[in-house]
């Protein structure tokens, strides 16, 4: 073997080794790049999620804030946060969208987007009338229905600020000379309660409920378009917030000397056909409801301030209600609405107070009120 041959062999081996080493290096570089890309992507995601968190925090401080956050440095990259009013599954929400960027302006730039949809606080509710029914309604006894506006003690408050006395999709009939009905008509003009009052400006019979008569307590309050998703009141009651209670058996309710103590949302999901005859006290929202729309509130008594939503209602005598009441079923067990003394006196403030715990719990921007995350 000549020296030249040896040199050629050695050079060839060295060249082969160099090429292979280059391939190893290239493979290593690709592996490292793969890891780097993954890391940068995760970093961008972390930045985006932090941006959403910042946006939610600012939104919690100011529910009207929509300015967003312009491009700013955050962690090891940059972030942009934008906000917009939109809907999420029909529910009005604020969309908080953050774009996290790593390696901004370089060829290794990586972006990731994180979006939170936070429900706007549930909206206000103004009933159509002091008493709203979905079936034939007969007013007997000495029931007082007054849709004029009162304060929470039942004292007439602001003139021409009330609502109708009665609103029903069926008929309304007065069968007692002692029954009195009043309210504020659409002019608006206050009509003081008086006996045998068939004033059609404050008693609306055979009406069509815009959007269909509510079938759930949340639909009464305006449904998802007003920030009340189905099941929301039940969940709120189950949470116990503001003294709320959720029971399927009325015996389980907090009571003092047989008088049920109401606060927040008092939610009774009664078995089909079960009747509840309580004496009430306190304030808030009382819901007597089941999916069959046949949970019945019968002959309640006591003194209650706020809103009563019940599937079925009969013999509303003895209860002094400052607020409003609505009956959901179109086939009540009886058309007898009032049978003896009692009153339904409308109060805007009582309704506002009743809804306050729910509306505050859903305060705009609260992280707990985020109903959807896209990331």
């Amino acid at each position, binding site marked *: 073997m000549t020296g030249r041959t040896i040199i050629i062999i050695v050079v060839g081996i060295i060249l082969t080794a160099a090429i292979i080493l280059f391939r*190893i290096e290239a*493979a290593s570089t690709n592996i490292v790049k793969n890891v780097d890309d993954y890391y940068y992507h995760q970093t961008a995601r972390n930045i985006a999620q932090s941006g959403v968190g910042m946006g939610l925090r600012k939104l919690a401080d100011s529910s009207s804030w929509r300015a967003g956050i312009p491009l700013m440095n955050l962690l090891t990259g940059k972030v942009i946060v934008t906000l917009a009013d939109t809907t999420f599954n029909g529910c009005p929400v604020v969309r908080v969208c953050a774009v996290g960027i790593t390696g901004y302006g370089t060829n290794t730039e990586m972006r990731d987007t994180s979006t939170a949809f936070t429900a706007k606080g549930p909206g206000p509710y103004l009933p159509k009338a002091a008493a709203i029914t979905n079936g034939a309604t007969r007013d007997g006894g000495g029931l007082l229905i007054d849709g004029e506006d009162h304060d929470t003690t039942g004292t007439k408050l602001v003139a021409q600020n009330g609502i109708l006395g009665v609103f029903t999709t069926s008929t309304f009939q007065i069968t007692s000379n002692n029954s009195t009905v009043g309210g504020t008509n659409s002019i608006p003009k206050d009509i003081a309660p008086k006996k045998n009052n068939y004033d059609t400006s404050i008693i609306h019979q055979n009406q069509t409920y815009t959007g269909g008569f509510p079938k759930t307590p949340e639909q009464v309050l305006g449904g998802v378009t007003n920030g009340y998703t189905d099941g929301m009141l039940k969940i709120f009651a189950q949470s116990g917030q503001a003294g709320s209670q959720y029971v399927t058996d009325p015996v389980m309710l907090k009571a003092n000397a047989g008088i049920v103590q109401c606060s927040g949302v008092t939610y009774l999901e009664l078995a089909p056909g079960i009747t509840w005859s309580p004496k009430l006290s306190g304030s808030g929202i009382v819901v007597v409801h089941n999916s069959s729309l046949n949970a019945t509130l019968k002959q309640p008594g006591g003194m209650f301030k706020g809103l009563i939503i019940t599937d079925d209602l009969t013999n509303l005598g003895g209860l002094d209600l400052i607020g409003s009441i609505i009956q959901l079923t179109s086939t009540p067990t009886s058309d007898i609405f009032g049978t003896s003394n009692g009153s339904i006196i409308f109060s805007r403030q009582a309704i506002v107070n009743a809804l306050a715990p729910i509306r505050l719990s859903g305060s705009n921007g609260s992280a707990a009120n985020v109903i959807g995350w896209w990331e």
Partner: protein
Amino acid sequence: MATLYDIVISIVIGGILLSMLIGFNGNITQEALAQTIKMMAQSNSTTVTQIIDWDFRKIGYSLSLSDSSIITADTAKIKFKGAFNGTGATGVIDTITYFLDPAASGNANKNTHILYRTLNLQKRISMNMGITRLQLVYFDANDQPLSCPVTRPSQIRSLKIGITVESTVPYNITTDSYVKLNPGVYWERTFKPRNLR
């Protein structure tokens, strides 16, 4: 005599150098092959995990409050609901199933299995990426692991997934004597889907 002696010594030294070069060449050739296989395994792993990452993060997205997002939860199978389309649009709820077939995939590496992803009732999509092991662990609200199969998926609040990906061809790296397996990667991640309820 001296010249002959020089030639013999030169041949010996040259032979040693040559054998060293050939040995070195053999080693780096094997290492290059291993590195390429590792890269392929890692690329496969990245591809699989990106798909899983996209889907798992959106579990329960756009579902109503009353729905449970996870339908089936087992060690090698999970079925869940959510809106997974790329636009973030709401309302279109899909069901996705991931299932690791226990049967061998048919690759040269007999340890590998096929991971199936099924969207709704569509034909399942197979991911033959050299997956040798897929392990799902589910946790409740207190971060306590739930026994599989999970009888009440509504209890699940987070889940951990571990995937081992190997080369689709068996390869023994003799240069790394401590490595007994085929070249591959292990990926593990705990997901706490924000929409999960």
